[in-house]
């Protein structure tokens, strides 16, 4: 044997001390450095991103443009199955967007209004609370993120989300390039070579286009919708009292889906 028990314990003990000293060493030699590098992992601190959608301006064209801009950028496949459907943003009527709100005397304008639903990026998200692997978590700016590379596919977050905002890859989403019936519906998939496609067995959802926000751009659904109807979508920082979204929410009456559950949704519907 090259090393006896005594020598081994000595080395093991010393390396433990050095190991424990790792953070302390940083504090002494390069104060602030370590903290800076940990902060970089929680960008957007102090902000609270939110979206306001003007129900009066949303029409079929807005819906189709916004939905397709989102789904094409994020490589969301059309699986031609209600059971397996994956959607990040989608159309819903008033009655089913706001269950319990409708009544028989409501005006036709609201009754037949179309709403675009997406992840509410709740300030108090139950999905993040229940995830057993931190595969879904909340950034400092409130965006609820989803890491499809860590997700074990337990679908606890889908049970926890009261908004049906989460989709599961029941099968391999990339099969739309192989299965003949699906190929026609998904010409050119993956549409965006710079955005990862997902694997089977993981959950996915809207990310408020966090990749674009970091480049100083705006969420794609909003850009696409505003090209059709200017002002139909407003995106901004709720923590800034001077932001356009704040002044809009001061001026117009807005609804939030299932606010009574206390998740504090950050998508507002202007009526």
């Amino acid at each position, binding site marked *: 044997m090259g090393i006896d028990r005594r020598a081994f314990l000595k080395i093991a003990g010393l390396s433990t001390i050095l190991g424990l000293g790792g953070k302390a060493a940083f504090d002494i030699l390069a104060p602030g450095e370590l903290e800076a590098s940990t902060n970089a992992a929680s960008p957007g601190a102090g902000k609270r991103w939110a979206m306001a959608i003007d129900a009066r301006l949303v029409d079929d064209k807005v819906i189709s443009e916004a939905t397709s801009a989102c789904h094409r950028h994020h490589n969301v496949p059309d699986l031609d199955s209600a059971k397996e459907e994956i959607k990040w943003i989608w159309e819903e009527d008033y009655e089913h967007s706001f269950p319990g709100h409708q009544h028989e005397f409501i005006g036709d304008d609201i009754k037949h209004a179309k709403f675009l639903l997406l992840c509410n990026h709740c300030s108090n998200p139950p999905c993040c609370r229940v995830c057993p692997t931190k595969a879904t978590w909340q950034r400092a700016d409130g965006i609820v993120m989803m890491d499809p590379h860590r997700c074990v*596919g337990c679908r606890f977050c889908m049970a926890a989300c009261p908004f049906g905002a989460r989709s599961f890859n029941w099968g391999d989403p990339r099969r739309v390039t192989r299965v003949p019936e699906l190929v026609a519906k998904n010409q050119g998939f993956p549409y965006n070579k710079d955005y990862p496609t997902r694997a089977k067995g993981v959950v996915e959802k809207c990310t408020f286009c966090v990749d674009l926000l970091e480049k100083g751009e705006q969420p794609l659904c909003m850009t696409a919708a505003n090209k059709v109807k200017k002002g139909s979508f407003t995106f901004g920082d709720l923590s800034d009292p001077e932001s356009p979204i704040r002044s809009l929410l001061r001026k117009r009456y807005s609804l939030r889906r299932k606010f009574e559950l206390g998740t504090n949704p950050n998508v507002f519907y202007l009526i």
Partner: protein
Amino acid sequence: MLDTVLKGKQGYWGWLIFLLAIMGVGLGCYLYQFQEGLRITGMSRDVSWGFYIAQFTYLVGVAASGVMVVLPYYLHDYKAFGRITILGEFLAIAAVTMCILFIFVDLGNPVRIMNVLLYPTPNSILFWDMIVLNGYLLLNLFIGWNVLSAERKGTHYPSWVKVLIYISIPWAFSIHTVTAFLYAGLPGRHYWLSAILAARFLASAFCSGPALLLLLCLIVRKVSKFDPGKEQIRTLGGIIAYAMLLNVFFFILELFTAFYSQIPGHMHSFQFLFSGLEGHGRLAPWMWTAAGFAFVAVLLLVIPATRRKEDTLAIACVSVIIATWIDKGLGLVIGGFTPNPFDRVTDYWPTTPEILITLGVWATGFFILTVLYKMAVSIKEEVGA
């Protein structure tokens, strides 16, 4: 100890081979699911948990119910149960194993299961469920094995085992409480969002588990020279009666809150389960079957003459198992997801591969149970002879 498992009559081996065959079919279907993903099941975007998670929930109850023989013996010094505590503990081992397997087959990404340990997340109830279930499995393995091997040697089990036994008693309650918390803390799922859910779970566990144990005792008496005992079976009958009454009572409490308050969200799941909603009523015949069996069970259990007679008691036990299984192994999960967050109804029904995988897991559990019971019974026979 394991030597006893390797010696058996033809019936024993035949039964094991039968179970192995079902396990094989289940495994084959699982490999298919592993390849294709969970799309081969009946689950959907709206009913995102199904048969697997429902079986898991039911079996956590069966596992927890082992405490119904352990507690009277160790805390109340009710000597008669000393004869059958091992049967309760071994039933718990088989049930927890099935629970873990059901969670495993339900995962979209089973190869990543270790992420739960690599990124421990105490705010997730699933994290705690993993801890209590695995802990309960280990406790029962250690306790069962040590107590049984001491019995074989004619000695007293080591004193540290006693500590584990005392820990295992509250632990049994914890596994089903934590499992109820998986459901009872989710906003927007009215059927589950109820403070009484954990209590209801425990009540249904403490009638269905002992009912299964009682039937197993009757089988053991038939196929071996070991008699679990008349008094033991009679006491179990009493436990089942009280627990089943509590279970039914708690369910009626839920009904009262929903239908006297008339809050639509609270009524919808019950309406869907018992009469159908928006034309979807596939579960209604099942739920009424459960109600019928529950009624029969309560009747047979409450009337002293039928409770004390072993054949009517056995019928009561079968009724309890059917009623609680439909309630928890079918209605609870599907009802909780219906209607969906948009107030729409999506049908769910398990597919054939899904049912075969489920049967495979049950067969695995019964395989483990058979082997463990063979061991326990052989040693009881040996000591008794």
